[in-house]
């Protein structure tokens, strides 16, 4: 394809990339505020180290693994295709059709891989060896993130099991179901924190949590509207949906709290924002405003109930990566099967109308076909992520060990792992 630079699209994608990168430090605040004062630095460092490792992995071989031409039966892209990012013609960019250069696309995709890995850290709070986590980020992005991204966004194997193309506009399966299932795997392997379910694990700084949620929301406009790869009407639809879905998700989450617990909480509002953002992520361009309102509200209500599952089933998903990201990701991905409206309000044409392309949802005259495709897409992502993450985690557990000593956990992982405490009297 002849490459013609589109300065408008390119400018938007450069901005969107910076917005998405901000989401990872934002997540560090969101998660950091939720842990106790003695482990806030470790919690935040798990996000920051993800930026460090994944950005490096990405330019060396990660982008190729995700978006290179099929190897290994289409499970991966070819890792040797874009090594070091040199001598890459602009026409090889996935977004050549929208006139966005290769470098911008590679950077945009890198920020997605970074935040996905960082999301997992919420399930391992207070107790994972920092060195093991650092190594895990590299192994996980190489063996779990890239095959799923390649399958869903790069035309690879893991996206090929559905009758019609799975709609995952910005990462319901690739990012949120993926991170949620991986978080569950690590929480199971790590075991319960000392005192889980008995001692209070109070969030030490709720203003941090709200600051993090606000910055996540801000960055998420780049995440969702940027996933159009162009500054056009579909990006506008995704942008508006990214405003309304989290807004109504706050109301849904707080409604549950008001009825069940008697008071609407700030932690609930912050969590509602993220649940709504997660659920609208795969659906941002394919549903209309009514669809976004419905998905957001359902996500707020269901996720606020789902965070209690860990007590019922006895796994210590410390900061609810499963309850918010896995459950929210499944809600958004599956509900597309009901709410997809590809006829109006969008110029999104990725495979629409083609053989095997996506079709409208059940409520918009498309029958059950897309619902089946979305469900299969969600199940494949859960199964692959859960199984491969369990294998990676088991290997790390028997070799270098996953968990810090009990003494370290009790006295605080910040001091033991980083030689620092966040506050004068961190407890």
């Amino acid at each position, binding site marked *: 394809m002849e490459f013609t630079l589109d300065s408008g699209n390119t400018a938007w994608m450069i901005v969107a990339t910076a917005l998405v990168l901000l989401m990872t430090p934002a997540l560090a605040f969101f998660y950091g505020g939720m842990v106790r004062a003695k482990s806030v630095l470790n919690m935040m460092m798990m996000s920051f180290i993800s930026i460090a490792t994944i950005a490096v992995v990405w330019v060396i071989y990660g982008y190729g693994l995700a978006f290179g031409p099929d190897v290994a039966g289409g499970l991966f892209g070819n890792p040797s295709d874009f090594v070091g990012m040199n001598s890459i013609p602009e026409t090889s960019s996935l977004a050549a059709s929208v006139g966005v250069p290769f470098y911008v696309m590679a950077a945009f995709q890198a920020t997605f891989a970074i935040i996905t890995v960082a999301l997992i850290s919420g399930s391992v709070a207070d107790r994972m060896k920092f060195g093991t986590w650092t190594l895990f980020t590299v192994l996980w992005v190489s063996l779990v993130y890239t095959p799923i991204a390649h399958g869903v966004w790069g035309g690879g194997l893991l996206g090929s099991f559905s009758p019609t193309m799975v709609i995952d506009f910005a990462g319901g399966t690739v990012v949120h179901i993926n991170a949620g299932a991986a978080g569950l795997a690590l929480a199971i392997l790590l075991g319960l924190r000392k005192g889980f379910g008995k001692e209070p694990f109070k969030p030490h700084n709720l203003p941090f949590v709200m600051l993090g949620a606000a910055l996540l929301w801000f960055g998420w406009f780049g995440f969702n509207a940027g996933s159009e790869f162009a500054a056009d009407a579909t990006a506008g639809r995704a942008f508006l949906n990214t405003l309304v879905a989290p807004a109504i998700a706050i109301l849904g989450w707080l409604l549950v709290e008001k009825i*069940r617990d008697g*008071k609407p*909480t700030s932690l609930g509002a912050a969590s509602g924002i993220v649940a709504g953002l997660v659920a609208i992520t795969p659906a941002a361009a394919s549903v209309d405003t009514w669809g976004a309102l419905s998905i957001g509200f359902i996500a707020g209500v269901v996720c606020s109930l789902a965070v*209690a599952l860990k007590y019922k089933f006895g796994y210590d998903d410390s900061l609810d990566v499963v309850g918010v990201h896995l459950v929210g990701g499944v809600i958004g991905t599956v509900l597309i099967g009901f709410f997809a409206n590809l006829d109006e309000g969008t110029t999104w044409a990725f495979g629409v109308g083609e053989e095997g392309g996506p079709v409208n949802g059940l409520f918009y005259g498309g029958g059950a076909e897309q619902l089946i495709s979305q469900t299969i897409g969600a199940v494949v992502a859960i199964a692959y992520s859960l199984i491969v993450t369990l294998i990676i985690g088991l290997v790390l557990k028997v070799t270098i060990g996953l968990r810090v000593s009990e003494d370290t956990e009790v006295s605080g992982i910040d001091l033991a792992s980083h030689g620092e405490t966040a506050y004068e009297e961190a407890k």
Partner: protein
Amino acid sequence: MKLVTAIIQPHRVDEVRAALEATGVKGVTVSEAAGYGRQKGHTEVYRGAEYTVDLVPKTRLEVLVDDADATAVTEAIVSAAQTGKIGDGKVWVVPVDDVARVRTGEHGADAL
């Protein structure tokens, strides 16, 4: 000399300070404290998980006074800190053998 120690509701600190100044007290030490009495703790709910918080935040005031002033100071604190609800706190008075002012080395009543 006496040491008057008061454990009060944190939101009554300003009123108590004003009352102490009105009685002519020259200085007071204020610190954050936590504890429980008949009020017991309270429950907090985070993402649906209910936690009992046993120790309630309180403020501790310490005032050194002349023997003659102890009753008046105690009454000033009590009336300024009182809300009438459980959890208002306690005030107690103990004798003090000696007091020294660090800057001048003065002892006893002169150091107050």
